[in-house]
């Protein structure tokens, strides 16, 4: 099978003074894949992700996102990705509709597109009654689903999710992953970090970062086999236990 590569990094490194946050990571992510990016706190996941989405300049190494260079073509990268951060980052003092209009507009959707896509989004999330309410009044789980839907509103090639399900109940997490699968089926590549090992099992492939280095990269089945483990949790503990850094 000829797989199209959408993310490719080559010895990508980020230093802060003497501290090497991300140390020569090299990996590839394929189109339509759900790629789990795991690691303990302080392993360098968020720093690595910030380089990939073009808001942090790498210290050395190369990376191409959707075919664009992370040094020179950050604006083109931004046009082709969606991003949902650890911190909830919709505007809480705007309504659901207003948030949709804002982000749709920023990503260059036409008024018609905003209207039809916005309506179907609201309908899909079952938020018809809340559409004109301020986002601040929504429960966390709904906010996260809304944030994800808005992050993929403009049909990006890749969507980056930084711990999207932190603090969310198991039922909503399950629903959230249904949405991720649906996005992947529609050809959107999903790059996700998480601390929940059950979620790691849902990914097509996962990488595990320890102290700024990618220690392992394979499908969950492959990893469990290699480390002779029952679950991803066991694999993770085995690898992360050797870590010298933590928060």
């Amino acid at each position, binding site marked *: 099978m000829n797989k199209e590569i959408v993310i490719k990094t080559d010895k990508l490194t980020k230093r802060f003074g003497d501290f090497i946050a991300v140390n020569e990571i090299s990996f590839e992510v394929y189109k339509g894949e759900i790629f789990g990016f795991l690691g303990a706190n302080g392993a360098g996941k968020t720093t690595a992700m910030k380089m990939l*989405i*073009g*808001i*942090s*300049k790498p210290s050395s190494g190369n990376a191409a996102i959707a075919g664009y260079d992370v040094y020179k073509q*950050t*604006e083109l990268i*931004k*046009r082709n*990705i969606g*991003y949902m*951060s650890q*911190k*909830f*980052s*919709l*505007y*809480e*003092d*705007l309504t659901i509709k*207003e948030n949709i*209009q*804002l*982000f749709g*507009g*920023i*990503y*260059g959707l036409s008024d018609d597109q905003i209207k039809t896509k916005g309506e179907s989004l609201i309908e899909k999330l079952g938020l018809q009654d809340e559409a004109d309410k301020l986002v601040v009044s929504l429960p966390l789980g709904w906010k996260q689903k809304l944030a994800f839907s808005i992050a993929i509103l403009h049909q990006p090639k890749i969507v980056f999710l930084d711990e999207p399900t932190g603090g969310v109940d198991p039922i909503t997490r399950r629903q959230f992953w249904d949405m991720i699968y649906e996005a992947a089926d529609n050809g959107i590549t999903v790059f996700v970090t998480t601390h929940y090992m059950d979620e790691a099992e849902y990914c097509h492939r996962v990488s595990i970062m320890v102290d700024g280095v990618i220690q392992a990269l394979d499908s969950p089945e492959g990893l469990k086999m290699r480390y002779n483990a029952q679950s991803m949790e066991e694999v993770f503990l085995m690898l992360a236990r050797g870590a010298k850094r933590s928060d």
Partner: protein
Amino acid sequence: MRELTFLLRKEFLQIFRNKLILRMIFALPLIQLILLPYAATYEIKNITLSIVDNDHSEQSRRLINKFTSSGYFRLTDNSATYNQALDKVEKDEADLIVVIPQEFERDLIRQSESTIMIAANAISGQTAGLAVAYSNSIIKDFNNEIRTEWLPQSRFNTIPVIEITNSNWFNTQMNYKDFIVPGVLALLVTLVGYLMSALNIVKEKEVGTIEQLNVSPIKKYQFVLSKLIPFWVLGLAVMTIGFIMSFVVYGIYPEGHFWVGYLFAGVYLIALLGFGLLTSIFAETQQQAMFIAYFFMLVFILLGGLFSPTENMPDWARYLTYINPVSYLIEVMRMLVLKGSSFWDLRLHFLVVTGFAIFFNGLAIYKYKKTN
């Protein structure tokens, strides 16, 4: 350009949704314009006066009467001795002591001269200075009166006297309010424009929404403009309210053209908002931004010539006012309101403030990084 309209829409929605801030923006001009000109006055009236009259003569009573009827002094104490009067000063019951010596009247008549002692409480140097100045002019008046009464009624005055008459240009009544109201107006525009813009980006930083904008394809200039334009509009709106207020309450309106005022405020606000953006780029939290803003506001206002004339400042402080944008607006407001200055008269001010606008905004755009 289309992206910018979406961003602007968002900013205005947020501003108008924040009811508390909105109310503050409009309450501030009202309260400040009503309170400040009345409260912060240079004129000193009701100086408390303690008199030690050791003479109890017709002339001493006449002098005391001149003091109390001048309108500047309030006689609060008649002490028997200077030390008793000093006691009153210590208790803060008297600002000025006037000691009339024994034989005051007799010396005046016989020797044509007498001495009066004046002692002022100089805790507030300004009050003391003015109290002494008022006393001097009262005593001088008294002098002239008795001189004309006692001198032989000759047609030709033996002592030549040069009399000075004043003519106060631009503020003929020397009305303090005419002077302070345009200054307060300048202060208001500054306060609203600077604080609002300084806090705005920092709030997005604190909440984390700025990251979402940074990963989006919006351009730097679009982002900066979306933060400038709303507060520019708001600043001019506040100025309009201020103009209306100062006309309704004080009957003060600019002698010059309104458009010159708006044009200047427009350029000034661009400079000021640029400075606000710069502040918010350096600050990470709203607390930090608040403190930085407070620091600069205080320095700008104290050195801006609102309360103390910049001409009185030492050289080094006067040079500082040249790089203080606020002092330009205060000066322009006064020139426009009192003097009716034209655009051409104010060209230098325009030039300098345009320079500020380019400098601050250039630096803000340069320093604001979507990538780090």
